[in-house]
């Protein structure tokens, strides 16, 4: 039985997703929606891992420790400052698209890790784990849908405008 591995994979994928959400938000701080929703969703990743913690223990998983969230207030101060500095370069569009594509892949990766764990949980008949994974999987999937929506909205301006 390698349940620990499936749990660790989720940990790694959600940790990576959280990191990319924060990084994309901070690198593109002038895109206020990416900044704020990015941090909100990064906090959601942390919540997912907290919900998974009892099962990590049950199955002997040894996940890497979570990143600690910075306070929203400190982040906002940083946003106001950095948005003023980098918010006016025209090359920002291509960089934005590249980062959003990476973010989309990270969300897909996390979504798939939850699918794998859900399958394993079902085979283990672990009702508690099935509940947690079902909820978290849905949110990870929605995170990917959101990034996809954002990419579709951003692409025309980046590629088709003068």
């Amino acid at each position, binding site marked *: 039985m390698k349940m620990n591995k499936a749990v660790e994979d989720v940990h790694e994928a959600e940790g990576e997703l959280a990191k990319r959400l924060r990084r994309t938000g901070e690198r593109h701080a002038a895109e206020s*929606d990416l900044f*704020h929703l990015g941090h*909100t969703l990064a906090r959601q990743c942390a919540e997912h891992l907290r919900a998974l913690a009892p099962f990590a223990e049950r199955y002997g998983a040894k996940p890497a420790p979570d990143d600690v969230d910075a306070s929203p207030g400190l982040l906002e101060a940083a946003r106001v400052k950095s948005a*003023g500095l980098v918010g006016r370069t025209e090359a*920002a569009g291509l960089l934005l698209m590249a980062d959003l594509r990476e973010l989309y892949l990270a969300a897909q990766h996390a979504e798939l890790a939850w699918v794998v764990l859900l399958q394993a949980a079902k085979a283990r008949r672990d009702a508690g784990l099935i509940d947690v994974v079902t909820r978290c999987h849905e949110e990870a999937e*929605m995170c990917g849908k959101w990034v996809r*929506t954002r990419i579709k*909205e951003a692409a025309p301006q980046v590629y088709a405008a*003068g």
Partner: protein
Amino acid sequence: MIDRITDIWGSRTPYAAGADWPARADQYLADGVAEADVAWVQSACVLCSMDCGMDVAVKDGRIVGVRGRTADRVNHGRLGPKGLFGWQANASPDRLTQPLVRRNGKLEPATWDEAMDLVVERSRQVIGEHGPLGMGFYTSGQLFLEDYYTIGLVVRGGIGTPHLDGNTRLCTATAAFALKETFGSDGAPGSLTDFDSCDTLFMVGHNPAETHTVLWARLLDRLAGPDRPRLIVVDPRRTKVAQAADVHLPVRNGTNLALLNGILHELIAGDHVDKSFVEAHTVGFDKLAQTVAGYDADRVAEICGVPAADIRAAAEIIGSARRLVSTCLQGVYQSHQATATACQINNVNLLRGMIGKPGCTVFQLNGQPTAQNTRETGADGDMVGFRNWQNPAHVADLARVWKLDPLQIPSWGPPTHAMQIFRYAQEGAIRFLWITGTNPAVSLPELARIRSILSQERLFVVVSDAFLTETGRLADVVLPAAMWAEKTGTFTNHDRTVHLSERAIEPPGQARSDMDVFLDYARRLGLSNADGEPLVPWQSPEECFTAFTVVTRGRPCDYSGLSYDKLRGGSGIQWPCNADAPDGTERLYTDHVFDTDPDECEDYGHDLSTGAAFERKDFVALGAAGRAVLKAAHYKPAHEPPDDDYPLLFTTGRTAYHWHTRTKTAHAPQLQNAAPEAWVELSPADADRLGVAEGDVVRVESRRGRLEAKARLSGVREGVVFAPFHFGYWDRDGDGPDGTPTAANELTMTVWDPVSKQPQFKGAAVRVERIADGGGVPAPAPTTTASEPAAGGLPPTAGGTGVRETVEQR
């Protein structure tokens, strides 16, 4: 004699449930004007989204007064203070009367030809260098239907850019999205007459005593009647509405969704669900029930900072209602999780099975008089006639009417929202921005950022307005606009009532209607349709309206049975108005079949937490097909919680006496004198801790800016600081703070709801310090409204004499 500044709502005419609201004719004529000497011209009021029917009194080519139209279904003759006195702005010497063009850094008078040549030359240059996506347009919620429809066709069909939005994005974008998410299409389900027969009112973040004064007059008459409806109010301020409530829930700003989830939880747990209605006419109940299961009253009380017993009491009243009307406005729409919260208010009525019948509805209200038309005409984030931009058949149908190749109409994504338009302008992607009838340099969040965007050398800014606003002062070209009563057109209120407003006087100087200016722009640009004919086939407002009746035929907002002639005399008429319903339609969804057919719906919906857009296949999988959609979302904490450095929560709002950035109301002496200067409201407990007394000058500071104003110790919730957003800098001849910042939006955050993209104005962390002694002189805040002093003791705000009220005897 009655003083209509002191007595905002006028004299009482109580009535019972199910009875007709008695008529009361309100009339105000300028001093010394005899009734016999005036000519009356039909119109409706444009100083809130009620659109009260009114006649304009004209003498010697000038407006000299107004009277309410007793036959009108909206107001039964009544007018509020803004309607009674606001018309004086038309004759203000501050009106713009000729175009201005920036030369050597200074705005100088120019001819229309010079100004329009420049606008067209820069448009051509930007389109040539950057394509249509280099062009941006930001319009209003205060023009007429004919102005918007013309702008929409010129911008989307002609220029071909998706970058057109209205300031309705700040106002009622969430109303539109909440209606689309739940019912499949925009359009208020109910009627103002539902207030006449309801037995319970649930009002969330809605202060009609100040924002819809004539609606509040109607409710006061019900509350004073023999069978008083029960009233639940959610508002962090102790408004006049809250004072009248059976249960007032002064929630902590930014916790609306937790409260609504809590109410829904109580309704489900208390078995107050109309199960057969939910089963037959909705989808999504299990998911909703699962989502709200964790929101027991004790947990919600903790989050929202209100007693659990009050939450239970509110739910019990809603749960025992037989005829429930729920309403919401900016307290919901301008908070975070706006659309998610607004949808839960829809859900309250759906769980109770109380929609589509007398006394049972939900009002996702509007703020601006013509916001509904910005939405219907597609001059904001919507497509014409509530078409679905993701539905190729809808786009093709519009292209057919417009005689264009469907590819010409931008439909690869949703129309660009205002905050994104400004972002594109900030990064240099948009190089041309035309702003019509709105003042973003005061009304958008984080003003230092907005001013810096509008001041860029590389951005060409055109401003059409009746006055030289803060935004106009930053423009390259300023075009003088004709106002209400100076042009003919139509507009629609928040219960779908369409009014005709006739031209009563000539516009001042060379001012022109926005429709005429955009017709001229299209002509000069040589815009044409696929047959090579001029793109815009109309010349007059009436021709434009007729074209709109054609393009809306068969859509939910069906105008096909309406005409100017039909709208003349009598009352305004509610759409849909067509061959089947020649007199209009009082209520939508009376058969409980909603607009969620995938081929018909205006939108396929979104995830409420992230704004992820659903596609047709997702929507089909939902299986709504005529049933309403119960959408759910979890509460998440606000974006900027208070902390040690910024320990208080800042919220913005409005007062009964002013409209937006005061360009109109500050030019009406009665209104201006009632609220002459900016103020800040603190709770007595916070003021005590800060050592602030009534009238002391305080500085309120956020991470983005500061404002300075006199403090009023009011009934605002402890921990919350309130400031009205009306007070900018134009009356100090400035485009921004020169010494003393007074605009509330200096402090607000650049952040918006993920679904409706409505900016958040009601929740920023701030700190407050006292900077000067007030010498015991009270703050210049009204005492007759939510800004009344908590301790009382100040004389009522006054100065509105000369109004005649005539109650019609039944």
